[in-house]
C-alpha cells in the first residue's frame, strides 16, 4: 500500500507538479472497492454455479465465455457516449451502478437464464465504465505524468483484485456455503465505491458543451494519421499475445501442479503487476510510453521462452509470473496514457476505448489461434513459434509506435 502514502494527493486540489491528481487517486479508490466487489464474486462463481445452482461444467464454460466476451462489445459505446455528452463521470456512474446492482440481483437469481442475464449486466457495466474512467484520469492529469497517473490507478485497482478473493474465502470460512453472504458483502463494497465516485470525483467536462462530438468527428480521429499506426501496432502485438491462462496451463502441465495451487498463479502475477505498475508508469513518462509498451512485450517474449522451455521448477515458475506481471504493468495502464496524447480532448474516451477494444479483439483471435496451434504442435513448440513471431514483430511495432513518443517527450 506504499503507493497511497508516497503519492498522497496534494493537500490543495489541482495539479501540483510532482503529485498525482486527487481525482486519479479517488478513481483508484473507486476501482479498488469495485474490484474487491467483483473479484469476490468472480472467485466463488465457479463453485456457486456448480455446487449450489447445479450447473454442469459445460454450462459453466458457457457462462465463463460470456463473462469474458460481453464487456469488449460495449466498451466502444461507453467511450463514445462519454465523448458525446462531454460528462464521462455520468457514463462511469452508470457503469459502476449497473455492476453494483447486478450483485444484489444474484440473491434471488436461481435459474441458468437469470444468472446469465445478471452476469451479462455486470460485464455490461464494466465495459461501459472503463473508457470514460480512463478519459477522466487523462483529463485530470498533467500530460507529462500520465503514465504515473495510470500507474497509481492500476496499482489501487489491483490491490482490490488481490483482496477480493481473500475476503470472499474468509467469509465462506465464517459462514460455510452461504454464497448469499458473499453477494451481500460484495454489494456493500460496490456501494462504497459508487459513493466515492458520486460524492468526490468532480464532474469534469472534457470539452466545451457547445459542440456535441458527432460520430463523424470520432471516426475521423480514430482512422486518422495519429492513431492509425499505434492501433495497427497494438493489433499486431495483441494477436501474438498468448493469454495468461495458456501460460499458466503450460506451467501446470510441465510441472504437474495440483489444481489447488492453480489460483496462486493468478495471485503471483497480480502481486508482480502491483509492484511494477507505478514504477513502470513513471518510467513511461520519462523515457516514452511507446518504449515501455514495447518493452513490456519483450518481457512477455521472455515469459514465453521461460514457460515453453525445458527447464521446470519453482524458479522458472516465479520468473514467468514476474515477467507476466511486468508485461501487464508496462502495457495495461501505459496504453491509455499513450493514446490519450494522440487524440483530441473531444474524442479521448473513444480513442482509449478503441485501443482497448483492439487489444480485447486481437487477444480473442489469439486465443482461438493459439488453441489450435497447441493441438497441432504441442505445448512447448506452440509457445516457441509464437515467441519467434513476436520477436520478429517487435521491431515493426516499434517503428509504428515510435513517432507517438515524440509529443510526450516534447511535453516533458
Amino acid at each position: 500500500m506504499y503507493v497511497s502514502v508516497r503519492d498522497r494527493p496534494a493537500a490543495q486540489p489541482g495539479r501540483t507538479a510532482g503529485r498525482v491528481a486527487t481525482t486519479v487517486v479517488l478513481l483508484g479508490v473507486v476501482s479498488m472497492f469495485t474490484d474487491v466487489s467483483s473479484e469476490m464474486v468472480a472467485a466463488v462463481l465457479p463453485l456457486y454455479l456448480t455446487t449450489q445452482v447445479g450447473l454442469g461444467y459445460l454450462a459453466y464454460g458457457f457462462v465463463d465465455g460470456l463473462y469474458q466476451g460481453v464487456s469488449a462489445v460495449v466498451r466502444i459505446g461507453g467511450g463514445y457516449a462519454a465523448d458525446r455528452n462531454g460528462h464521462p463521470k455520468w457514463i462511469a456512474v452508470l457503469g459502476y451502478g449497473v455492476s453494483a446492482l447486478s450483485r444484489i440481483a444474484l440473491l434471488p437469481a436461481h435459474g441458468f437464464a437469470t444468472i446469465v442475464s445478471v452476469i451479462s449486466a455486470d460485464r455490461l457495466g464494466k465495459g461501459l465504465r472503463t473508457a470514460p474512467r480512463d478519459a477522466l484520469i487523462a483529463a485530470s492529469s498533467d500530460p507529462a505524468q500520465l503514465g504515473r497517473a495510470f500507474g497509481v490507478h492500476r496499482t489501487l485497482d489491483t490491490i482490490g483484485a488481490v483482496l477480493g478473493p481473500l475476503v470472499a474465502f474468509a467469509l465462506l470460512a465464517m459462514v460455510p456455503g452461504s454464497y448469499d453472504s458473499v453477494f451481500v458483502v460484495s454489494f456493500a463494497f460496490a456501494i462504497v465505491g459508487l459513493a466515492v465516485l458520486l460524492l468526490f470525483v468532480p464532474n469534469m467536462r472534457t470539452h466545451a458543451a457547445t459542440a456535441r462530438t458527432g460520430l463523424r468527428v470520432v471516426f475521423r480521429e480514430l482512422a486518422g494519421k495519429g492513431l492509425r499506426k499505434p492501433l495497427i501496432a497494438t493489433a499486431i502485438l495483441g494477436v501474438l499475445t498468448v493469454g495468461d491462462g495458456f501460460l499458466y496451463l503450460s506451467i501446470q502441465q510441465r510441472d504437474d501442479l495440483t489444481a489447488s495451487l492453480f489460483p496462486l498463479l493468478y495471485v503471483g502475477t497480480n502481486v508482480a503487476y502491483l509492484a511494477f505498475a507505478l514504477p513502470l508508469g513513471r518510467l513511461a513518462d520519462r523515457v516514452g510510453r511507446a518504449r515501455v509498451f514495447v518493452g513490456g512485450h519483450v518481457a512477455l517474449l521472455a515469459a514465453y521462452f521461460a514457460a515453453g522451455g525445458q527447464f521446470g521448477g519453482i524458479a522458472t515458475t516465479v520468473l514467468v509470473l514476474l515477467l507476466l506481471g511486468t508485461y501487464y504493468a508496462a502495457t495495461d495502464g501505459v496504453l491509455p496514457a499513450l493514446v490519450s496524447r494522440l487524440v483530441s480532448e473531444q474524442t479521448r474516451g473513444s480513442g482509449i476505448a478503441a485501443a482497448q477494444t483492439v487489444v480485447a479483439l486481437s487477444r480473442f483471435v489469439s486465443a482461438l489461434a493459439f488453441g489450435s496451434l497447441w493441438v497441432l504442435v504441442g505445448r512447448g513448440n506452440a509457445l516457441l513459434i509464437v515467441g519467434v513471431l513476436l520477436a520478429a514483430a517487435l521491431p515493426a511495432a516499434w517503428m509504428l509506435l515510435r513517432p507517438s513518443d515524440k509529443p510526450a517527450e516534447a511535453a516533458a
Partner: protein
Amino acid sequence: MSTRIRVAALAAIVVLSLVAAGVYVLRVQREQASEAKAAPAVPVSDLTTAMAGPHLLFRNTALGNGYGKLAVVPLSDPGGPRALTGVSCERAYSAAGRSVCLSARRGITNTYKAQVLGDDWKAVGDLPLTGLPSRVRLSRDGALAVTTTFVYGDSYATVGQFSTRTLVTRIGGKESADLENFKLYVDGKRITAADRNLWGVTFADDDTFYATAASGGKTWLVKGSLSGQRLDSLRTDVECPSLSPDRTRIAFKKHGDLPNGEWRLAVYDLRTGKETVLAETRSVDDQAEWLDDSTVLYGLPRTSDSGAATSDVWAAAADGTGKPRVLVQDAWSPAVIRD
C-alpha cells in the same frame, strides 16, 4: 455540496453498508448455528436395520445436523425414514460392501478428497483426486473405482473453461489410469486432438466400461477397455452413461438441440440401437442410476420453501412411459445396493 457534507454522506454510506452487510452475515451465521444443532427436518431411523436388505445410499440434503451426510433408506420404503451415517460427501457410490466418498473443503485453495469406505463407513484408503468432484462409480465387485473431477484450467480452447480428468483406480493398487491417455477412435478414426475430454464412466465388467468422450464440441458414447487402453465410439450426443443391471441398455444425458446447459434423459438399447427419451421433461444434469431393470433414478435441484438449495432423487420408467415421481425427498447422488 460542501466538502464537509460530502465527507459526512460518505461516512454515513460506509457505516450503513458495513452495518447492513455485517448484520446479514451474522444473522446467517446464527441461523447456521441453530440449524446445525437442530434435529434433521426428516424422520430418521436405525442404520443397521436400513442396511439389512437391498437399500439406497444417497447424500442427505434435508436441513438440520445431518445435512451433507450420507444416508440410507431400504428399497422397500424409500420415502420413509432415513438412516444417517456420520460421513459427509459431495458425491458417493457404493458396491459390494465398499463405498467411495468424494468431498471438498473450500478455502483460499480448495482441497478435494476421494476416500474409500468400508462397510462400517470408516475410511480404509484414499484415491487420487485433482479438482472439483463431479462423478464417481465403482465396478459391481467393488474392485475398480472411477472418479471424474473438473480441473480448473485444464482446457485451453476457451481460457478459463473447465475441463475434466477421469481416473480409474484398482482399489488397494498404486497406479491410476487417466482415460485421457487412452487411444480414442471415432468411427474407426483415431482422434489425437488435445481437447479430448472424458467423463462419466460406467463399468460393464472388470475390463470393459462405457464413458463420454468429447472433442471439438461433440460428444460420443465410447466403449473402453482397460487392458487395451483404447476407446471406441458407439454413438454421438451421449453424456454420463449408466449401464442397466442386465447390461443391455444405457441411460444417459442427451443435449440434442436444447439451449446451452440443458439435457434430457434417454435410454439407449445396446442390442437394437434404439433410443428412448424418458418422460422427464425437465433438464437433468446427473449421471443416472438404475433402481432396477425398468426404472432410472436421477437427482434434480430444488429451492426449498425456506429458500435453501436442496435436491430430490426422482424415478422415471426406462421405457419412456408414465410420469416421473419423487423417490426420496431432500436427497442427491443415489446409489442402489441390491445385495
